[in-house]
Structures are given as C-alpha cells and as structure tokens.
C-alpha cells in the first residue's frame, strides 16, 4: 500500500497520557515504556485525529520525509 504524504510527529514534551492511542483509527501511535508516544510511520496516514485531541498539543502533522 502506498504511504500517505503526511504523518504525525510527536514533540519532545509528550506527557505519555495515551489519549492519542484511543483515537488513532490505524493503531499507528502508542506510548512506549510510559515515556512518550511513538508513531509507526508505516501505519500512520496523517489523518490528524491524534493531533486534534492531544491535551498537551505536542503532535504535529508533517510532510513525510521532513519528520525529525
């Protein structure tokens, strides 16, 4: 399957609350070891649901390839 043009990127100040996990329709984001959320680039379609609900506002939707 072709990858989407955009994907979610989690910022450094993620509080690992896991709110993003609950809304991701592709299970592409999960909190790793209680430290921070991590996006699976192969699964993420950049729909932005996680960015919209993130209570800390640390998720951005970026162009694929520009994610740092």
């Amino acid at each position, binding site marked *: 399957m072709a*990858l989407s043009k955009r*994907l*979610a*990127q*989690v*910022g*450094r*100040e*993620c*509080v*690992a*609350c*896991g*709110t993003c*996990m*609950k809304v991701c329709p592709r299970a592409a984001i999960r*909190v*790793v*070891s*209680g*430290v*921070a*959320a*991590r*996006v*699976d*680039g*192969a*699964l*993420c379609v950049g729909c932005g649901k996680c960015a*919209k*609900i*993130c*209570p*800390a*506002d*640390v998720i951005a939707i970026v162009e*694929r*390839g520009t*994610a*740092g």
Partner: protein
Amino acid sequence: MKKKWYDYLWIGELLYWTLGLCNILFAWLGMLFFTIPLLVALIGGSKAYCHRYCGRGQLLGLLGKKLSRNAPPPKFLRSRWFRYGFLAFFMVMFGLMLRGTWMVFTGAPLRQTVTLLWVFKLPWQWAEVDMVAPWIAQFAFGFYGVMMTSTVLGLATMALFRPRSWCVYCPMGTMTQGICMLKQKKEDGGCGGESQKHCGAAENSGQ
C-alpha cells in the same frame, strides 16, 4: 471499536464522589487512585493506568465532548518546570494534610471541613465519623479535599482547553512518567532527558 470493561471506569469516579458525599470515610478509597498508578509504573514500567484505567481521565474525556472549548492549552502547561513544580506543590500540600492527620492522632481536635483549592474551607458537619478514630476521619476530610481540588482544576482546564488537559499536569501522571523514564534509563540508557526527542518522533520504517 468494541468497548472493554475498563472503558467504564469513569463510573467508579462518579461513585467515589457520591459515596464520599454520603460518608466522608469513603474518601479513603481514593488511595487506590494513588497507589495503583505508582505500582503499575514501578512494577510494570508503563503508564497503562493513564491510558486505560484512569476513571477521572475518562470522565473528563466524556464531559469534554460537550463542555470543552477544545482549544490548545498554553505551552507552559506542558513544560517540565511547570509539571514538576506543580507536582512538588501538590506533594507539599499533601504533606501538610498528613501533618494535620498526625496532629489529630496526637490529640488535636478533629476539624470537620473539606479544604478546596488549598484555601476554601467547606463546612462538612453532616458527616458521621463517630465510628472511627478521629485521625482516620481527619485523613478522610483532608484526602477528599485533595481529590476535590484536583477534580475542580481538571474540570476548569477541561472547559478552557482540551478535554483531558488535566492529564498534562496531573501530579500522578508526572510522577509515573518520571518513574518510567528512570526505569528506561536504567535499563538501556534510552528515552529519558535529552534523548527523549528520539522516542516520540516518527522514526520507524515507512517515513
């Protein structure tokens, strides 16, 4: 997606408040909300409590669907200094509450008030607490105040910002994340501190 049993734990939160209003001694049950996340972080090394089992977070999420402005929160709310500063402040206030309990244990009179937002003393004279030692009742009054204060703050930030804004600066969440970071560092020198930037970014295959 099919709901699981833990998706209904917000009912437990409502039950806690109702039981506490009926009898303040039920405030002791709130200790579960303190100890379980810590045990999950210490033993399991995860924040599964926040993700799955936090009734307060679920309740704020549900209420926020109707009552939240859904506005991005101010940046300071997620900053490390604010989160750890708030945790420290909360712990100091918790310590003062424990001191009050100790004073009653050593003979001071019981104060039948619930302190809201660390300042406002709500009279709670209807409480029937004769069946237990005064210090047990004093702890219940103090603890109910702590829980009520955090709930009021959670509701305020839910309305002003995003539904689960409380999760950003929740002292338990900060503490459990700190524990997980320490565990992670200890295990593989991984995702704590400066290196955390590598943990959140979309760094897996397919970028």
